[in-house]
């Protein structure tokens, strides 16, 4: 479904990621993990078209999306929840949801999609007229994900949804993301620093370090991998799901 083939991305003269390749199959959840500044968000931003690769290709359902501007990429069925929520704070919750269905195809089914989003996140329904900037952190994240679903994507990119959320909220978002993946048949590619949670949630994961993919595999294998356990899971056996 999504095929990223050997992309190289620069910020000015400085190269941020080297020959990154990854694939996301239909209806699976893939996690991209790694330390700060490793290139996780850069990878996601390149797929959504906010950045463009200097070389390499990104194919989505066999369309080469790396040649398209970001508004065309949304049209092809990729939607992204950027880091730090990406909502419109001075617009109302309902206007934010409407903006999610900005493209003409999704505009036609706006009310159906809104129904669906508000069933997934009921607090959004009761807060329709409130300014998005006045929502709590958890509600803003609901709105960010809900807005991204309004374009009825086939692939949802989520950048650090757990950032700044209380652990109990993170747990409920994990359930919601699983639900979105199963009931809406949406593939999900997520970037996470909360490695333990990401590996529990995803089917597959890629590990990025200093701009290179250093490991890739099924999450069960990675959870047992010595390097992963030592570097990301604090070493030693860990059975509680906390942190």
């Amino acid at each position, binding site marked *: 479904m999504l095929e990223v083939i050997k992309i190289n991305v620069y910020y000015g003269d400085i190269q941020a990621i080297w020959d990154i390749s990854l694939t996301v199959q239909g209806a699976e959840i893939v996690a991209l993990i790694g330390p700060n500044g490793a290139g996780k968000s850069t990878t996601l931003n390149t797929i*959504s*078209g*906010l950045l463009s690769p200097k070389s390499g290709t990104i194919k989505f359902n066999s369309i080469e999306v790396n040649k398209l*501007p*970001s*508004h065309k990429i*949304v*049209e092809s069925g990729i*939607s*992204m929840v*950027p880091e730090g929520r*990406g*909502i*419109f*704070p*001075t*617009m109302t919750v309902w*206007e934010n949801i*409407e*903006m*999610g269905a*900005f*493209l003409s195809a999704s*505009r036609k089914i706006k009310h159906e999609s809104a129904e669906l989003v508000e069933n997934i996140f009921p607090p959004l329904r009761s807060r329709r007229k409130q*300014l998005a*900037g*006045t929502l709590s952190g958890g509600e803003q994240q609901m709105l960010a994900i809900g*807005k*991204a679903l*309004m*374009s009825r994507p086939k692939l949802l990119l989520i950048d650090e949804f757990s950032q700044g959320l209380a652990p109990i909220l993170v747990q409920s978002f994990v359930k919601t993301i699983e639900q979105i993946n199963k009931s809406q048949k949406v593939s999900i590619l997520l970037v996470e620093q909360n490695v333990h949670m990401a590996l529990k949630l995803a089917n597959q994961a890629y590990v990025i370090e200093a701009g290179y993919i250093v490991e890739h595999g099924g999450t069960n294998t990675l959870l047992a991998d010595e390097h992963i356990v030592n570097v990301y899971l604090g070493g030693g056996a860990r059975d509680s799901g906390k942190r």
Partner: protein
Amino acid sequence: MDIKIIAQTIIYGIFSGSIYSLVAVGLQWIFGITKIINIAHGPLVVIGSFLTFWAFSLCHLDPFVAILPVTLVLLLLGLVVYCVIFYPLKNLIGHERVHLSLLLAFGLMIILQNGARLLWSADERALTTALTGASLEFIGVRLPYARLAGLAVALLVIICVHLLLTKTYFGKSVRALIDNPQAARLVGVNINLVHLFSFGIGIALAGSAGTLIAITTSFSPFGGMVWTLKGLIVVVLAGMGNIRGVFLAGLVLGVVEAIGAIVGLGAYREIFGLITFVLVLMFKPEGLFVRGGRAA
């Protein structure tokens, strides 16, 4: 001092303030959305005035009717100007964009001023309409019909801008872009297209302001810079990026100037406006009508 004189002064302040507002709304609209400081806004306003003069003298159109074609012509002119002059800046952000746009707009201003001089000569002009001279007396205060109609038109235009922003998908995409450009791109907003049409609409607003100036006062090819400056003062009073506060801020400037003119001498008019400007910059630099919660 006689209460009637004070009332009359405030009313006149509101009349000229409404035109300041209309000039500033266009300037603010363009800056808020495209981050271009359009120094050439005033000269474009003057082009609007001269086009009204043409519509009046060549086509015998009433200036209040001419506002529609003049606004439309300026809209088209704005689209062309954006494509030719400002589109090449599309990939620049931050200071680089603001600075280069300032230089380009400055060049555009020189071209427009001299173009206007070639086409219409350097004379100062004013229009005599059916409404000129006639006025309404209301409890001893004189309200010229042309000024009243001008105020009504300015209000109407600003209400239209407000409706455009809140009721249409285009307006919502504009607000989304001001709020969070990256997120706007991610929902499928074509930023270049929004910039193009926003610039066009901003210049159309300059055109409508130009018509009202032609109806109510005089204008000349090199008089545009004054309007740019008035507009910039109003924009700063209202708060950069705050389109809705501009109308009130324009009225404030108009009234302050008018009061300044009777307290001191006519020549002090501008000084009172500028003192207000400096005071606002010193004590409320974010603008008079900015509420909390706006992302920087």
